[in-house]
Each structure stands twice: as C-alpha cells, then as structure tokens.
C-alpha cells in the first residue's frame, strides 16, 4: 500500500517548480507573485473580447438565416415556425416524415410546458431525463450561434443533458430572439450584472448530429449521440 496522497504538498511542489522555472529566466521579479496575481485578477475581471468574426455581425433576420444555413451544412435539418402554438404540429410532421412514432421526451422547460400539446392528440409527451429507450428527444436551447450554426443547451431539470445524447433523434427548439452572431454573446448571458459567470453543470454547444471519421477517415453520422438533429426556430 502506498502512502496516501498529500494534495497540499503536491500543489505547493508543482506551483513551486513553476515559479522556479519562470524566475530562472528573469520573468518573475516578484517572489510572492503579487504583481502576477494582480495581472491575472485584472484580466479575469475585464474579460477582454478576442477577435470576433465579422460574418456574424448582421441584422436579426440574416442572423437566423445564417444560423439555419450553417446548421444544414453540418447535416442538421431545420424548420422555422411563427410561434410556439405551431410547435406540436411541426414536431408531429417531422416524426411522420421520418417514420418515427408519435412520442417524444422533454424536460420541464417552461416554454415547452406552456405549449398546448393537445393540438396534436396523437403526440405522446414524456417528461424527465432519458434512460436511452426514447427514440426522439426535444430540448429547448439557451440560444443559437449564427457563425457556425451551433445550438447552445444548458443542463438542468428544464432540459436534461441525457436528452441531448441518448435518443437517436434530437429536436432542438430555439427562439429566433436567442440567436446571436457569435459564441461570446451566448456565453455572456451566463454572467450576472457583476460579470460573474453562473455556469450550468453542463453547457452543450451542439453543431450537427454525432459523427465519427475513425474508420479510414470517412465521416459517418450517428456515432454515439443522435443520428439526426432537427432544429426548429420559433419566431
């Protein structure tokens, strides 16, 4: 039996080695790292914006069109509806067109909960995390990113993470007003007014159906996650 791991000692050994290596080249004039810490805290507080691609800097209408276009380029399918009232019909149509049973699993997202699902009486809706037996999962996205057609989903009871990965077919609902030009805008929504990030346990940025190129570098869809992703833009 080896002796138990001393985490504190290991931490100070590693940080000590880093400081020694950095000071050996004169990069560190402050042995207590006060200047370095101040620089780091300043940078963490100011969160300078990097280089944001121009392509996402377009009007609201073009942003939605770009989001859908990029999503289709990575083998997602897309649809746009005017309001949540049309959602059950849009989902039922998709299921019929793909020979799927009229059954979905969703979380308890309030926007989905407010939908009148009785408008499609055939459509069965289960609520909760997926155990892998569901063929179709429906989650509501936190937002979409036009620059690469990426949907961003936050974990929690509203939209359980398992629904993103276990069902073979994943329907992502996103409101047009939540589609931004770039990743930074979506990530910024997770910060409060003081700039502090409030992260969900998992933030999933999803760009198309699951795929693998691991056999002779030929891309095949449906590796471990969904074989098909259908994005429905509302509004």
């Amino acid at each position, binding site marked *: 039996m*080896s002796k138990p*791991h001393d985490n504190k000692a*290991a931490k100070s050994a*590693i*940080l000590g*080695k*880093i*400081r020694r*290596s*950095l000071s050996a080249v004169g*990069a560190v004039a402050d042995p207590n*790292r006060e200047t*370095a810490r101040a620089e*780091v805290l300043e*940078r*963490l507080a100011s*969160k300078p914006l*990097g*280089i944001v*691609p121009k*392509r996402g800097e377009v009007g609201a209408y073009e942003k939605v069109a770009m989001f859908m276009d990029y999503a289709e*380029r*990575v083998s997602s399918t897309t649809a746009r509806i005017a309001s949540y009232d049309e959602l059950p019909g849009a989902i039922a149509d998709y299921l019929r067109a793909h020979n799927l049973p009229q059954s979905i699993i969703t*979380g308890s997202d309030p926007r989905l909960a407010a939908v009148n699902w009785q408008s499609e009486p055939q459509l069965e809706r289960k609520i*909760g*995390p997926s155990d*892998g037996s569901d063929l179709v999962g429906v989650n509501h996205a936190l937002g979409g990113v036009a620059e690469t*057609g990426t949907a961003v989903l936050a*974990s*929690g*009871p509203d939209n*359980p*993470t*398992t629904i993103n*990965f*276990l069902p073979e077919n994943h329907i992502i609902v996103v409101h047009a007003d939540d589609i931004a030009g*770039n*990743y*930074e805008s979506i*990530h910024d929504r*997770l910060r409060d007014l003081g700039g502090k*990030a409030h992260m969900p*346990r*998992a*933030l*999933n*940025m999803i*760009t198309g*159906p*699951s*795929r*693998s*190129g691991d*056999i*002779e*570098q030929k891309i095949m869809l*449906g*590796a*471990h*996650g969904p074989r098909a992703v259908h994005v429905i833009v509302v509004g």
Partner: protein
Amino acid sequence: MEITSPDFKKNASEALADTTLQRALKNVELGFIGKRQDAVDALPEFEALRDLGRDIKTHCLKHLDVYLDEYEKKVTASGGHVHWAETAQDACEIVRDICRSVGARTMTKGKSMISEEMQLNAFLEKDGMEVTETDLGEYIIQLRGEHPSHIIAPAVHVTKEQVEADFRRAHTQLDPNRNLDDPVSLLGEARAVLREKYFAADVGITGANFLVAESGSSVIVTNEGNGDLTQTLSRVHIVLASIEKVIPTLNDLDVFLRLLARSATGQEQSVYTTISTGPRRAEDPDGPEQYHVVLLDNGRSEMLGTDFEEMLRCIRCGACINHCPVYHAVGGHSYGWVYPGPMGSVLTPSLIGVDKAGHLPNASTLCGRCESVCPMRIPLPKMLRHWREREYERHLNPTPQRWGLKGWAYFARRPRLYHQTMRFGMRLMKYLAPQTALMRRLPAAGGWTKHREFPAPEGKTFQQLWAERQASNGQTKGDAA
C-alpha cells in the same frame, strides 16, 4: 507502454515495408489537408486569431501558477475537487483511490492523451478495474492491444478490414454470420456494444481540451458524443488534464474554439463542445454525483523558461502531424511513445529524455510545414534544432556523425575552401555517375539510396548556377532569393 523511441530507425524501416499500413496512411493526406485549407480560407480572421491564440497562451504560461490557483478556487466553489499530481504514477494512484472510495469496478473513458502518458488503463486493470475506451478509434485500438498512432485519429493506421476482423474476434456474443462489409455497420455495432458500457460504468473519465479559470470549468471538444455519455451517465466524473490547459475566460475559450476544429479536422466547429462545471446540482435530473479534476505536471513545469516553453502552447489539434511528410511515410507507432509527428518529436524528449528520444528530432527534413499550419504558431523546426544541439552537446549521437558534422563545420566556416571543394566534388560526382544519370549507391548515404536513387549532379554547384542566372538576368529582377 513500452518506449520504443530508441528503435525509431528499425520501427520506420518496418513501417515503410508494411503495405497495409502504407495504404491506411494515405488517408492522412487525403482526409485532413484539403479540408483544413478550405475551413481556413472560409474565415478571414483566421491568421489574426492564430496570433491572438499564441499571445493568450504565452500570457497564461507566464502566470501559470496563479491561473491554476484561481482555477482551483472556482472548481472547489462549484462542488468539485482538484487533485495535484507531480508524476504520472501519482496521477494513476489518485484515480485509483477515487475509484476505490466509491467501490467502482467498471469505467468508461473518453479520449485522453495524458491517460496514455500515464499508462492509466494498465494500472487500473492491475487493480481489477474493467476499463472501456469509448471513442471509436480508441475502442478499436484497445481491442487490438495497441496504442494511438495519431493524437486525434488514434486508429488511422488500421484498415476497415482489420476493424471487421477485430470486431468478429471481440464481439463473440453476436451472430457470426452478420454482415460487416460496410463501415456504417461497424459503427452501428460499436455504438450498440458501447451503449451498454456507459450505463454500467461506475466512473467516467475524460480528458480536457481547456480548463477555464473564470468559471472553474473543464471543456471537451468531440464529434462522437462519447465523452458526453461517459461523463453524464457515470456516478463519478474524473477529468484528466495537464497543467498547461488552463486559460483565463470564456471569451478566451471562444478564440481557441475557432482555431481548434479548423486546424484539426477542417470543420468550422466540432459537433460537441461541452463546458462542465462541478457535479450534479440538487435539482438536476441527470449528471455525475462527483466531479474530480486531476492536474498532471509530469515534467511540464520544468519546460517553462527553457527553449521548449513554447511547446506548452500546443492545443493538440494534430495539424502538424497531418502535414508532416515523415509522419505520412512512417506513421505514428514508429515514434515509439505517446505523441507522434513534429509535436511529438519536440515533446517526447522533454518528457522521457533526449537520451531515449534523440532519433525523433533528427527524423525531420525541417521543411517547416508543421510551423506553417500550427494554430499556436509554435516554432517546431527551431525546437527540433534545439534538441539536435542538446544531443550533440551531450555526446549522444554516434561518432561518425559527430566527425561528419565537425568536418562540415570546418568547411562551412571557410567559404572559399568550401566553394572550391564543392566545385571539385560536383565534377567528380558527374564523372563517377553511371549512364542512367542516377546514383544507385552513395558512399556514407546507404540508408538514403537503399530506398531511392540520387540524381547525379550535372557538374556545377547551386552557387555557380545561381551566379550564372543572376548574371544572365542582368540583375534586373533584383536579388530576391
């Protein structure tokens, strides 16, 4: 894994003679280079993003101790645990102790290169754990008892016929007469077999592409979704990350996300980018109950402040490997340890010693393609030369080579003597060359002429030809060389 880097020459000879491997390696050139170029061309800001990415990483390395400390505070605040490991052995023991503390017997694992560095699977299996790799490529090579031959395409050396044979051998519970001709059926079979593993696993291990100090998050970037199933369906999620993975903020993450996929696979974005922060919350219906991060040093802190510090900017995209003519010829296993290609030839001597890995920095033509595509602008050829210098200083290269270098240096420092000798040599070689105008055997270059013929010199040196051309152009085009 056994280190075979000292046998690089033997490994490379065998790889060159292996026709199946050579067929598989063609997919590297065909599968990556053009796609990367297309993705780069489609983003006008790409070159500026490379500069910025380099600068962010440089800033992080200069403040690495502080960023790691800040990162740990955030992980702890979100209910996770950070474990510090100085060596690979320490990291293995930390993982084993976490597994024991929850009575774990089975584990799924997403792709992690440092777990290869740690030889984690072998360590845990000795302790009675059942470990299953879930990335398709990693799963294939686990069945074959091999190690990755590429950092992002671990089974790139395997043909689909070999995968079929491996699956028939391993999946004996399935109908032996099933049809597996189509790669899609191979993928489907792996998907079904691995689904059961995810649900059965007590512990899920993933690597980390980035650690974000602002939020205490770990980030994985994948296409298959295996990393997500691994970390979502297990009771305990363990993240393995080396210390240089920490970056400041989510805004910095977005810079790297625009560089990584384009450089790696030529995608505008990978399918799944997952930002994980702590364990399952009180109200969460799914996700792991425990979240651990193992921070591994394993020699990296000692690379800081040296000629090799810039290597720590590497984001493991594999672009240098995909563009390396030496890798295209000999494949990844020839390099004899975890990291192949140009990045491996720089990193491996740092981590296992130049005495064992001295052949690697020499296995390069210094053509510069690696540096030209590196999203972090790591000067790989310069660092390969640094290793050659270290090797020479420490008298690690063989005596004939040292005498050869000394001899060449003598002439190179005396330009007149050098030119005279070269002119004489060229005339001599022209005279000696056989009628085919190709040299079948060159003295002291047998290793080279064994595989190809040397075009005979036509009697003049490059310098002479250049001077003549300049003279005939009347210097009108200037002296752009």
